[in-house]
């Protein structure tokens, strides 16, 4: 049996257990409603969940654009210029150790409890790993490649477009994977804390009235969102498969990030 089939069997087994354990009364439905009752709860309140999903996806999309765009841009600057690096990196690294969620109440004071405060929080939350990965990716480019390009008469802009960017792509992608996942976390968590819409808000509201099937329906949606995001990143990585085998240094940095050597505080 291959590892892939085994993995699939485990997932199927877990889904089956989710249905069987609550149904046989082994686990009370309050703690874990069966899969079918969860799906039914979600289905019956379809429009409510649909609306919440739209709000959450909107917030995720905007935050993703800020976090990834800003992270790549600033990471590229910090990675390639020593002066801003000396200035900014120590601050960013210490900021990374701060549980950023403490900022969220402040954002609600500044921006209200609508989408803006979630977007602000999730953007900052996802921005840091993206920026750090991009900076690492650019710093670890093999200097021999740049020297070779220069020996062939490449100008500064040609070196940027034809060497630095393609060589940094594997590390940037793994940064996006972490950053994007954190954006989803950031949006959902902030919705659960203080808000009036979104999936996080629904989960939180149904929890207060002990309506477990509806809570789990929300959880399922968040799960689906994370899986979909992962699939998109995997697709991009496959598209860039050749680049993945890119600079060894870049690959090493990428491995470190995916292996969790760089992990945020929550």
């Amino acid at each position, binding site marked *: 049996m291959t590892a892939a089939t085994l993995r699939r069997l485990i997932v199927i087994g877990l889904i089956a257990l989710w249905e069987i354990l609550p149904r046989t009364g082994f686990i009370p439905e309050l703690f874990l409603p069966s899969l079918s009752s969860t799906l039914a709860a979600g289905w019956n309140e379809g429009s409510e969940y649909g609306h919440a999903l739209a709000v959450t996806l909107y917030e995720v999309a905007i935050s993703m654009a800020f976090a990834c765009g800003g992270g790549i841009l600033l990471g590229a600057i910090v990675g390639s210029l020593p002066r801003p690096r000396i200035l900014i990196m120590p601050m960013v690294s210490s900021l990374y150790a701060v549980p950023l969620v403490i900022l969220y109440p402040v954002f609600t004071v500044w921006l209200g409890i609508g989408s803006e405060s979630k977007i602000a929080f999730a953007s900052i939350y996802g921005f840091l790993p993206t920026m750090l990965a991009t900076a690492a990716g650019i710093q670890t480019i093999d200097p021999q490649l740049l020297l*070779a390009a*220069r*020996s*062939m008469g490449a100008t500064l802009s040609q070196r940027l477009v*034809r060497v630095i960017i393609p060589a940094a792509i594997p590390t940037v992608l793994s940064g996006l994977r972490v950053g994007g996942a954190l954006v989803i976390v950031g949006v959902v968590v902030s919705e659960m804390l203080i808000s009036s819409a979104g999936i996080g808000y629904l989960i939180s509201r149904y929890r207060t009235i002990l309506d477990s099937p509806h809570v789990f329906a929300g959880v399922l949606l968040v799960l689906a969102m994370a899986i979909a995001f992962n699939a998109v990143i995997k697709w991009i990585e496959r598209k860039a498969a050749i680049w993945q085998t890119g600079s060894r240094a870049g690959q090493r940095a990428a491995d470190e990030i995916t292996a969790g050597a760089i992990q945020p505080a929550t």
Partner: protein
Amino acid sequence: MQPLANITPLKPAGAIEVRNVGQIFRTTTQDVVALEDVSFDVKPGRFVVLVGPSGCGKSTLLMMMAGLRQQTSGTITISGAPIPEPDPNRVGVVFQEASLFPWLTAEENVEFPLALRRVARNERRAKARDALKLVGLDGFGKRHPHELSGGMKQRVSIARGLVQDPPVLLMDEPFAALDEQTRMTMGDELLRIWAATGKTVVFVTHSLTEAVYLADEVIVMSPRPGRIVDHLQVSLPRPRTYEMLSGDAFGSLRDRIWRHIRKSA
């Protein structure tokens, strides 16, 4: 007005003149003299090897001949003109690590210097194919570097250095990272390519055997500050063969270089 390329150079294409060249690395604490008063000539089509202990500045000298670094004093001319910046039409460079771009195929790597100059795609393809054929990699153009062996990567790197047909090829310890057998084979391959193209080759190495085996002339350098301590002619007949390695002529040349290096070590 005549285009620049048509101006007849003072020296024939491929001639190299190094005159009183010095290089000082300035650090915050002190100035380090890397090279001092280095002068030599290379006639077109010659195979010259620079040899010397680590830190003697032989790679630095090569980088200056490639226009990748400017000397502190003295002049260097390639085909009669100074080389203030890299110019792949005049000088091709091959590095120790093959320095191929891993996201490009072998063919695209060879095309790279042409692409920088916006040469038309068809012409690029054709020239890259010819260069790959010259180095014995016909049919490997579509492979990526990670699908090639160390020796093949260096072949691609040589093809890239030659694709614009420069009269001079500079090689900075190109086979240092290869295993012994591959290294011997690549030496023979390089001599074949050199004979077929008639390029001027300046080759930096640590290996005395490699130096004598490949060279018309060997320039021996001392450790920091790098100076030329000997400039010897290798009069062994060509083509060079493996049997020559154990001959007396070969041995005495290698001993002569070794004595210089041992003295300075």
